[in-house]
């Protein structure tokens, strides 16, 4: 099994979710993160002082999938999250040693 971790622009989440729903039924876990990269931040003003804020709000999606599905999931995320502008984000893939579904105790692909 593999973990696919995508850092995307927050407003793309809904689209990615729907895209994935079309190619199958996947569970996923989502969190809010702040990203730093080539996309430049913005200036904030407080009582006349200027602050450069480098961190940009991003959304992290984590999906554990079977090896077979990995490629199509990655492709779907790539398509749906893309705007073509800087800061679209990354997809990171990791190997997963084991998966357990807490409710049933099932393990491996069955637990997904």
């Amino acid at each position, binding site marked *: 099994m593999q973990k696919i971790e995508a850092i995307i622009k927050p*407003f793309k989440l*809904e689209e990615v979710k729907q895209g994935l729903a079309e190619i199958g039924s996947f569970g996923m876990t989502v969190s809010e993160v702040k990203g730093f990269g080539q996309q430049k931040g*913005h*200036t*904030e*003003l*407080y009582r006349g002082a200027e602050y450069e*804020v480098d961190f940009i709000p991003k959304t992290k999606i984590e999906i554990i999938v079977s090896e077979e599905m990995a490629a199509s999931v990655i492709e779907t995320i790539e398509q749906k999250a893309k705007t073509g502008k800087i800061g679209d984000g990354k997809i990171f893939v990791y190997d997963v040693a084991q998966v357990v579904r807490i409710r049933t105790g099932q393990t491996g692909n069955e637990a997904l």
Partner: protein
Amino acid sequence: MVFSTKMKYVLSSIAQRIRRCFVFTGLLLGPLSVFAQETGESIKTAAVETVNSGDTAWMLTSSALVMMMTLPGLALFYGGLVRSKNVLSVLMQCLISAGLIGVLWVIVGYSLAFGGEGKFFGNFQYFLLEGINPDSVSGSIPTYVFVMFQGMFAIITPALMLGAFAERMRFGPYMVFIGVWLLVVYCPLAHMVWGGGMISQWGAIDFAGGLVVHMSSGFSALAAAYFLGKRKGFGHEHIMPHNLPLTIIGAALLWVGWFGFNAGSELAADGTAGLAFLTTQTATATAVLTWVIIEWLHRRKPTVLGAATAAVAGLVAITPACASVGPGGSILVGAGAGILCYLAVTLLKPAIGYDDSLDVFGVHGVGGAWGALASGLFIADFAATDAGWGGQVWIQFQSIIFTAVFAIVLTLIILVVLRLLFGDLRVDEEGESTGLDLTEHSETAYSQEA
């Protein structure tokens, strides 16, 4: 020579020029009215009037209460309903209404609304409150207090509209819009209804501003929502209130402040003020109860946003009617407001498909019109008018139609002109998705520390 005398000289020569310039505008607007040009005549209030300290105490308090309705009341009510990336922009739009209109009002607004005898609008005799001093009296209160009480109405009314185009309008054009709208829509209406103009001559009942405040802003808001177009994502994305407790604080402060708005409109602390206070409370309570029950039946769950919206709807509806209906009548006004505004917000809006983001039309437009009608419909014996029941209802109906058309047409004209001047009145797509707080004000509402 005392400094202020010199300054007064400078300011009044400026005043002269501005007057000329307005007279010119008046000529352009000629078809609408014979522009009242007499200036400098002495103030209307007769010398024999004396100040009653009790009435004055209540009107000072009422003025403060109405100010509280805009800031923080309305600011929070609207601020909580937008997404967190736009909350500051809403607060700023309320703040600048106080800033800009606060100044405009003492310069020309008051005079345009309450100066002279024009049919459609006032004149410039009170430019910069010329001729008024601490000893001037209006009725039983100092004229300065009357000016301020009315000034607070002038501040909140334009701000009410911002809910219609929240989360997308640029700040600069917004400022110009409300300034112009005040002079072109609000002041004339205030004059027509309260300043001795046309609608007051018809004999319309509008005790605290169903026509002048709520219908004017509500129908203008509808026009503006159409003109500016929908928010990006409206209809398919989940656009949800970011902080409902803020909204509830806002609604609550609106409720409290509204006692100044309605009972203050008596301009005295007497039995009629007591009546207005009571009907305000009863109508609002009834509207809340009605909405909660309807929503429970219709959606299986009563919501707190629904209850808060109902409170505002009840307050809006009783505004024109608060001194002409009795306790029983106020219950009917409130129930009607609950039902009609619920329908407007829940069924009418999706049916027609405009994006009046925070339901200004559904609440203030519909509620205001209903209240204006109800002022006649449920008129109490003690408030009976010469026109008779049917006659009064007919007068109310006419005034409603006139106000609706007046507000929509003039607002659209203003917006067309502004678009010619400023280009797009909306922020660009990028800015809209980043949020107006950063785009327009370089600020973030909430931040987490390291």
